[in-house]
């Protein structure tokens, strides 16, 4: 289980988030631009430091301000798919996926075996020699996911993984993405702007508003909000969702 209880002063507001994600659960993180969604992912991954609080994953403390503990990103074992995918453009598809294993000093034969498995499972083996910058948007998304999954992460963080794809491809990739994440059985947080992602992929959803959790509940509850119901933050809100 992932447990987050952190605070960080940002330029316009203070990010103050407390939430947890169970093993095998997919939490969809939604909210307006600049509400702190990507910052929350970066703080969880260790790419930015909170001002105070605690983050623990499967009982292992990743960050604790009281204990002055801060595990660096490379030691957190978190699979992170960036919004731009951040595929290394000077490397081939194969080298991109193998990168995480190369940092772990595994033998070449073991790396080859595991990379082959992942590339074949993602349908990327045929393009393994292509430059990462030369493949299509859908393939980039698969490479980024395969690269994050090959390290056997304890947590998955995906920042708008479908936003760079065209609408027709998105529908297909939603199903594929959900199945792939399900098979990993790790906690997963997905940032999205698209309520169709919330409905199709997520188990639960969390609405962030200026750094605070405004609503957390089932995906359908956030869907109701998104469908134009009263904002949960407004005084008249009386939805069934658990407003925090």
């Amino acid at each position: 289980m992932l447990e987050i209880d952190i605070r960080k002063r940002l330029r316009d507001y203070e990010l103050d988030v407390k939430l947890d994600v169970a093993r095998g659960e997919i939490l969809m993180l939604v909210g307006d631009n600049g509400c702190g969604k990507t910052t929350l992912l970066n703080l969880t991954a260790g790419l930015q430091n909170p001002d105070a609080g605690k983050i623990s994953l499967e009982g292992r403390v990743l960050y604790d301000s009281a204990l002055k503990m801060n595990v660096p990103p490379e030691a957190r074992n978190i699979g992170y798919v960036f919004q731009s995918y951040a595929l290394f453009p000077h490397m081939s598809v194969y080298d991109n996926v193998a990168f995480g294993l190369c940092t772990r000093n595994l033998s070449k034969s073991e790396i080859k075996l595991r990379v082959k498995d992942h590339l074949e499972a993602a349908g990327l083996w045929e393009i393994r020699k292509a430059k990462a910058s030369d493949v299509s948007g859908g393939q980039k998304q698969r490479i980024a996911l395969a690269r994050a999954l090959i390290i056997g992460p304890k947590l998955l963080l995906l920042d708008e993984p479908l936003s760079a794809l065209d609408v027709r491809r998105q529908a297909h990739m939603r199903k594929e993405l959900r199945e792939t994440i399900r098979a990993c059985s790790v906690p997963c947080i997905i940032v999205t702007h698209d309520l169709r992602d919330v409905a199709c992929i997520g188990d639960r959803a969390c609405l962030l508003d200026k750094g605070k959790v405004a609503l957390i509940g089932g995906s359908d509850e956030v869907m109701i909000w998104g469908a134009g119901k009263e904002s949960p933050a407004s005084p008249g809100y009386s939805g069934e969702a658990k407003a925090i």
Partner: protein
Amino acid sequence: MASNQADIKRYGERCLAELANLEHKTIGISSRTREASLKVGLALLLILAMAFIALPVVALFLKSPLDTTLRSLHDPVVIDALRLSLMTSTITTITVVIMGTPIAYVSARFHYFGKELADSLIDLPVIMPPAVAGIALLVAFGRMGIVGHYLDGLGISIAFTTLAVIIAQVFVSSPFYIRQARTSFEDVDLAYENAARTLGASRVYTFFHILLPMAMNGLISGAIMAFARSLGEFGATIMFAGNFQGRTQTMPLAIYTAMQGDLDVSICLAIILVAFSFVVIFLVKTLTRRRVYKSAGN
């Protein structure tokens, strides 16, 4: 009567239309003329700029007697100066790359107290006249200088040695590399480094496997600029290292010395320096282009 009025009306309309058409044509012609004259002006400016740069180089080649140039290649003064120039410039470039790359990385990726001051200090030799740089180095590392005084006590003398040539070259050429390297590192999106870190790479591993290859082209251009600046260094060298054949007399100093006796010989030396600079830069560019292609292909 009615027909007459209608005719007058039609005539009026036709006149107005023709007037509008004429105005349109006038605007069209004047705008086209303006565009054409702008293009001609820009082309002239470009030709003038190219002539300004190319003319002295061409003149150098036209004025140089071929037999004297070839004979100069066997002159011990030229051989010594050429060997010293290439050796010191190569050592300088390697030193600048080794020392300047971490400095450029820190400057591009970290914010610290006094960063603006540090960056300005790094850039200072670019605007400092070379003669001033030479005097500054002399009062710092010369026998009576603030550091040189102590080094002299230990039996280490820097001024007027080949080491002084290298120090002078490092001083004046390092900003050319560091500035270019800093920009190249800044141009690499931080997301690539972040992705590498989450995949288990340490800062050092990320630097060598992600940042360095992605910034490589910029680093190579910076190194070429630093090499070219070192090869042409004159003012700081003559002030700090002197003008001793085989020890501190680099090609620019040999050209200056020859010019005081025979202009033809100095022209020949200049030709040789230009040719060598061109060959080195061309070779580095060609080799690195292949290297980058290779790493991208695999």
